[in-house]
Structure formats: structure tokens, C-alpha cells
């Protein structure tokens, strides 16, 4: 009897999965630094107007190297590259988050739908396979070129070509879940599909979704930078890719390293930070990788 009550107390004191994950995450310094970096970049994006004036017009000091007046130097029209990188963070983040949100919604719908509704699975699986086999970059270039450059176009184009990977990962995670006994029990009790999906399936795949959000967002930022570098960015807003594109087309690339270095660095930091955060979260969430540390 006393043994049972001890066990019950132990269960009650057992931390929730979220707090266990958080505890494990906190013990991963690389993950913490990366998360800090992401938060910093988000802050820069939100507070851009407070950090630097919007780069417009032209300046007197053309292609000047980094100095106290221009931390990141100036471009071929004498505009401050620091300000461009700061304001570029906004567009790059907006496109990254926007495209990733859209891709996640589509990918989760298709992935969970395929896993749950068996009759749809074959068709959806085929569709995902076809989408995955398409040459993504040339198609993105084609669509972006035809639709005309704007932030909305970029978000849509990148999302349209990013969701299949999310769908595949989510589907593989959801497949074993839908066969579990508590899902069957819900069916037996007459629960509607919507309820089962929302209460049982989605929560079970949510860790995968969380990782996908971060990874897809960083990939979207890369895609945006790539398209903007090819001249398909929005000419009315600054993005990291646009700064690189300006450096390339003005011919400053070979003579003024700072025009390409700082925006590239920003892209690199964001992508590395996002990847590290996703890895650290995945490790912290997974009991098998977490085991050593929590013991």
C-alpha cells in the first residue's frame, strides 16, 4: 500500500513533457546561443526603424569600406549597407515566416490527410512525389519572372515549392499514430474525424511541425535570397538577396568585398542558427537522445 502511494506521488511530481524538453534544451549551449541569435534577428526585424534610417536616394561616399560612419561600408550609390542589412532582415524574415507558415499549413493538411484518410493516401502520395521530383529552382525562377517581382509573389512561390517536404515528414510521423489504440478507442466511441485529428493526431505530430517551421523558414530565407540575387526580388523593399544582387550587377563584387560579405553573413547566421535550434529542440524532445542528460 505504501509502495503504491509512493509511486503515485512520483507520478504526480513527474514534470510535463514540455518542461522536460525545456530542461534538456537549456543544457545545450549551442542551441541556446542559436535561439538567442534568432531572437536577436527577430528583434532587429521588428525594431528596424529604431536602428537605422531606411536606405533611400544616394550618398556622397560611393563604395566606401567599413568605417565608423558606415559600419558595413556603402554600396555603388553611396547608401549605407548596415541600414540595408537591418531593413533587409525585415523582408527576409517576413518572407521566411510567411512562406514557412503557408508551406506548413499546406504540408500538414496533406501529410495528416494522407495518413488519416487511407483512400486519399495513394493520390496525395503521388502528388507529393511529383512535386518533390520537380526541378524547384528553375520553376521558382520561371514563376517569379512571369508573375512579376513582389514580396507576395516570393512568399507564394517559395511556399508552393516547399510544402511537399513538410507533407512527407508529417505523414511519416502521423502514420503510426493513426493506428494507436487510443485513436481506435476514439473512433469506437463515435468521435468525429475532425475531433480525432485535432485532439489526437495533430498534437502527436506537433514536434515535427515545430522543427519543420524553423527549417522551412530558414530554407525560405535562402530561396528568397537566391531569387532576389537572380534579380527576381521585390525592387521596392530591401532584402539580403537584393543587396547581393546590387553588388553583383553593379560590378562591385570583385572590388568591394563588403557589399557581398555582410548580407551573406546575415544569411549564414540565420540559416545556421535556425538549423541548430531545430537540432537542439529535436534532441531535447526525443527521450532517447535526452536520456543520458536527464539521468
Amino acid at each position: 500500500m505504501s509502495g503504491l502511494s509512493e509511486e503515485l506521488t512520483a507520478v504526480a511530481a513527474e514534470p510535463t513533457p514540455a518542461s522536460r524538453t525545456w530542461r534538456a534544451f537549456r543544457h545545450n549551449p549551442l542551441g541556446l546561443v542559436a535561439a538567442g541569435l534568432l531572437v536577436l534577428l527577430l528583434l532587429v526585424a521588428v525594431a528596424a526603424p529604431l536602428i537605422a534610417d531606411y536606405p533611400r536616394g544616394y550618398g556622397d561616399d560611393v563604395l566606401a569600406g567599413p568605417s565608423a560612419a558606415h559600419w558595413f561600408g556603402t554600396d555603388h550609390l553611396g547608401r549605407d549597407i548596415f541600414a540595408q542589412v537591418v531593413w533587409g532582415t525585415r523582408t527576409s524574415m517576413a518572407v521566411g515566416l510567411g512562406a514557412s507558415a503557408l508551406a506548413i499549413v499546406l504540408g500538414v493538411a496533406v501529410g495528416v490527410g494522407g495518413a488519416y484518410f487511407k483512400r486519399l493516401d495513394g493520390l496525395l502520395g503521388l502528388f507529393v512525389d511529383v512535386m518533390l521530383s520537380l526541378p524547384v529552382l528553375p520553376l521558382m525562377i520561371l514563376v517569379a519572372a512571369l508573375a512579376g517581382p513582389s514580396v507576395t509573389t516570393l512568399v507564394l512561390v517559395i511556399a508552393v515549392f516547399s510544402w511537399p517536404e513538410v507533407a512527407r515528414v508529417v505523414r511519416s510521423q502521423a502514420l503510426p499514430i493513426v493506428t494507436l489504440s487510443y485513436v481506435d478507442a476514439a473512433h469506437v466511441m463515435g468521435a468525429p474525424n475532425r475531433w480525432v485529428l485535432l485532439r489526437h493526431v495533430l498534437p502527436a505530430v506537433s514536434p515535427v511541425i515545430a522543427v519543420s517551421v524553423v527549417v522551412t523558414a530558414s530554407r525560405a530565407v535562402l530561396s528568397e535570397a537566391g531569387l532576389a540575387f537572380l534579380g527576381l526580388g521585390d525592387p521596392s523593399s530591401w532584402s539580403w538577396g537584393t543587396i547581393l544582387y546590387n553588388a553583383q550587377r553593379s560590378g562591385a563584387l570583385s572590388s568591394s568585398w563588403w557589399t557581398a560579405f555582410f548580407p551573406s553573413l546575415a544569411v549564414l547566421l540565420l540559416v545556421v542558427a535556425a538549423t541548430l535550434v531545430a537540432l537542439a529542440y529535436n534532441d531535447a524532445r526525443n527521450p532517447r537522445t535526452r536520456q543520458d542528460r536527464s539521468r
Partner: protein
Amino acid sequence: MSTTRGLRRRVALGAAVALTLAGLAACVPSEPDGASGGESEDPGRSDGGSGGELAIGTTADVVNFNPLVGNSRTDSWVTNLMYPAMMTIDDDGTKVPALATEWGYGEDGLSAWIEIRDDMEWSDGEPLTAEDVVFTIDAVKAEQLGTVAGMISAYESATAASDTRIEFTLSRPDGAFLNSIGFWMPIVPEHVFGQAPSVADFANDSDWVSAGPFVLTRVERGQRYVLEAVDTYPLAEDGRAALDRVVFRVYPDVNTEVLALRSGEIDLIGNALPPSVARDIEGDEELQTFSVPSLGWAHMQYNMRRSPLDRVEVRRALAHAVDYEAIREVVLGGNAVSANSSVLTPTFKQWVDETAEEYEYDPELSRELLAQAGVENLELEMIYDAGDPNISSWAELVRDQAAEAGITITLAGLERNTYLARTNERDFDIYAGSWAIIDEPQSNFSLLFAPEGFINYAGVNDPEIDRLLAEASSALTVEDARGPLHELARIVTEQVYDNVMYVEQFTFAASNEWTGFQPKPSELLSVVNPQSLASVRAAD
């Protein structure tokens, strides 16, 4: 200085983008080995050859070896070295003799004649005669070939009065006819091109025959085009080109060309350098630069088919909302001159109107003009070719400056084909672009300003302009044409039918190891024109 550059280069090489460029540069062929080319034949030197080889960088392949059909820049650079034009252009923008020696019109303007040199021959030994000229112009007329076909609407027939004299019959007086065919029509050999059932379909992609300083001998698509010097080229000082060989090499873009020039892989960049690169190269002691004016102009046009751009006050408001001097100084790095907002630009000394004045940058005046027109919250879209580095840069300045005058301009930097399609459909509010060569205002202006003009993008439809166009085109001398053209240009400026912003000064760069270049106006002729390459020699 060299240490700084070395450091910069090393840092730049570290960047990922530079790695990509380096990867692309790796595709460039190694030094050509004259003996190894199986199909290579040397029609050139009997003296053993000591003139050396000049390697020229270009950013495109030759699309068409038939000079009457191909008209891309690299096409022209290569074919101009083999198929001579009758005239060329001097620094004042005036047509001067090349293959032709003299020319003129009959008194009624319905006949014309050209005398050509008697010492020219094709590289296979056939003489170049008046018959070749007659064959060429008849082929152009009959098959409507290239841009020249659009310039010879007055042409009826031609005869070879002797081996060196061609006589033309015209359907109406056309004061630009001789200059147009003289400059634009490369003469092709009748005994080669005449063999094909149709000149338009003749690919001319092997066994080339040349009457220029060089002849093409080897083609490696995507890599290089080798031209050997021919034995006789009477237009050169020594009766033949000083060089043994000219090689055009293909690079992905101008950045890579600059790296190749600096590393000694090429001796000359055919393409004009972007201002920031030009600025950088001008300080390099191992390189020389040449500056030549454009034969066209950069401009904005306002689509008058759309309200409120059909009102002259609104167009003037837009014209006064741009700081042209800032664009020339900052974007073009000073490599541009003002055209005083006139379509008669200072490049052409014989046509220029000295009284023309540029639109002043005055946002207040713009606001007043808009208020007069009763237009508020003007929002317009400006289209341009996103691949053009200068225009994409100044488009941003135009947008920012127009905002000062309360005008919102949305930029639409488009991929080139989309841009061309929208321009042809006249689907734009503001068009930003440039004309490469407008060399004969007497005839070219009707393309620009006649109601049915092929490149009348703005939708000019003005009876007074039409009258002046007719008067100018039938004038047989410069003096007679100047009056109506000046009047026409003044109306164009007043009505803002075409907002001429600047005339670009192109910069070209070559290695100091060569001398004797003869730069000519425009990116088309630049330093790769036949006269120039025929006189290039190794520096002492």
C-alpha cells in the same frame, strides 16, 4: 595599392559568391594551341607571323554567323571583322568612308550613287566589286532581312555601273538612305551567299570568306571564336592587320571578365564596364581604359494613351521631379553627359541644338504643375529591364526623388523578355530604357515619333511633328534637314514626348601590353571595330 588590391581579392575570393564565379571561370578554355585544331586552316601570314594574339572577352555566344540576319552585339563584333561596311562613323558622329570612297544624291533626290574602293578582295581571292553591293541590298530588300530592311523603304533598284560604282533608284527623296545602308549594311560575297536558295536561311557557319582584317577559322561554342588575320586588308596602315589572330572568349558576366583581364587571361573586354568597375580599373597601372560616347540615349517615356499622362502638365511635373545631374554623377559615376533634354544629343555635332536646356530638378514646381492639372495622389508604375545595371539603379533614385514631389512610383524591374513584351504592347505608365544607336535622325525619328512608329512607345500623335518628319526626311543635305529637326526636337522637349536623361560614355578596358586601339562611338563599334583591331599591335 597593389597590396590593398591583393588583400581585397583574397577576401573576396573567400566569399561564397566568388567561389561560384571561380567555378564558372574554370570552364574557360586554356591557352589555344594553334597547331592542335584539326579543322584550323591558316589563310594568313606567309611571313611566319609575329603579331601575336589578342584575346577579347565577351558575355555572349555568336547566335548567327550571317551578318544580314544576326544582330546581337557579339554577332556584330565577329561578323564586322569579315564583312565590311561601306561607311563608318567618326568621333563627331559623322559618316566617313570605309569601303566606300564617295557618295551622293541626284538633284531630284530620286537617284543616288556610291563609289567603292578598287583594291578590296575576299580572302578566297575573288575581288569585292559593286556587284556584291547590289547583291546584298537586293537580298535585304527581297527577303526583308534584319534592321536594314526597315531603313530602305525608299529603295527601288540598284545597278553596278562599273566594278566600283553603284547607282540606286529611289521611290522618294530620302536624305538618310546612303548613310543608313553605308553604315548598317555589311557587304556579303555574292559568290558565297548567292549559292544558297535563300540568303535568310544561309547559316554561314563554316568555310568563311572575309574581306575584313580577319577571318573566322574555328568556333567552340560557349568557349571561343578564333579569327586569323588575312593577307591583305588595304584599309590597314600596313596593308594587313598587325595581329596574327583575334580570339573572342565567352564569359558568364562582366565580373568574371574583369578577373580574367587582371589575371592576363584576356587582353581586352569587349563589353562596356559598369561605372563602379570602371572607377576601380582606372586606377590600375597595368590596364588602359577608353571612353567613347553612346550613339543613343537613356530616357523615360510616359504613356500618353493613359490618363492623366495625356496631359502635358503631368508629364512636365514628372520631368521636373528627377535630379538628372545626380543620376549622371552617382549612378553613372560621371560617365555620362547631359543631352539638355533634347533628342538631338551632343554626340552628333552636326545635328546638336545648342539652345536646348535640361529640365530643372524642382519638386516644388512639380507639385504646382500637378495642382494646376488638378491631379492628386499620382501613382504610377515604371517598367524597366532588371538586367540593365544602370537603369535599375537610377530607377530607384527616380522613385525616391518623385516621392519628394508627392508622386508615388512603383518599380517593376522585369526580366528582359517580359519587359520587351510589355513595351511592345504599350502596357506601362512609365517606360525607362535606352536607345543603343539613333544615328540618322532624319529617318530614325519617324520610328520614334510618327503615329505608327515601330518604337513610338509614348504614343506621340502630333500633326506638327508629322509635318516636320516629312520635311526632314526628304532634305538631301544636313543644312536643309537641320531646321526641321531642331524644331521637332524643341516640340518633343516642350511636350515631354521623350524625356532624354543622359548620353552614356562607355568605358572599355584593355591590357597595357597592346597599343594602337582606335575607339569609336557606341558599344557596338567601341574598340573592337575592324579599323581598331587591324591597327592593334604589341606595345614596345
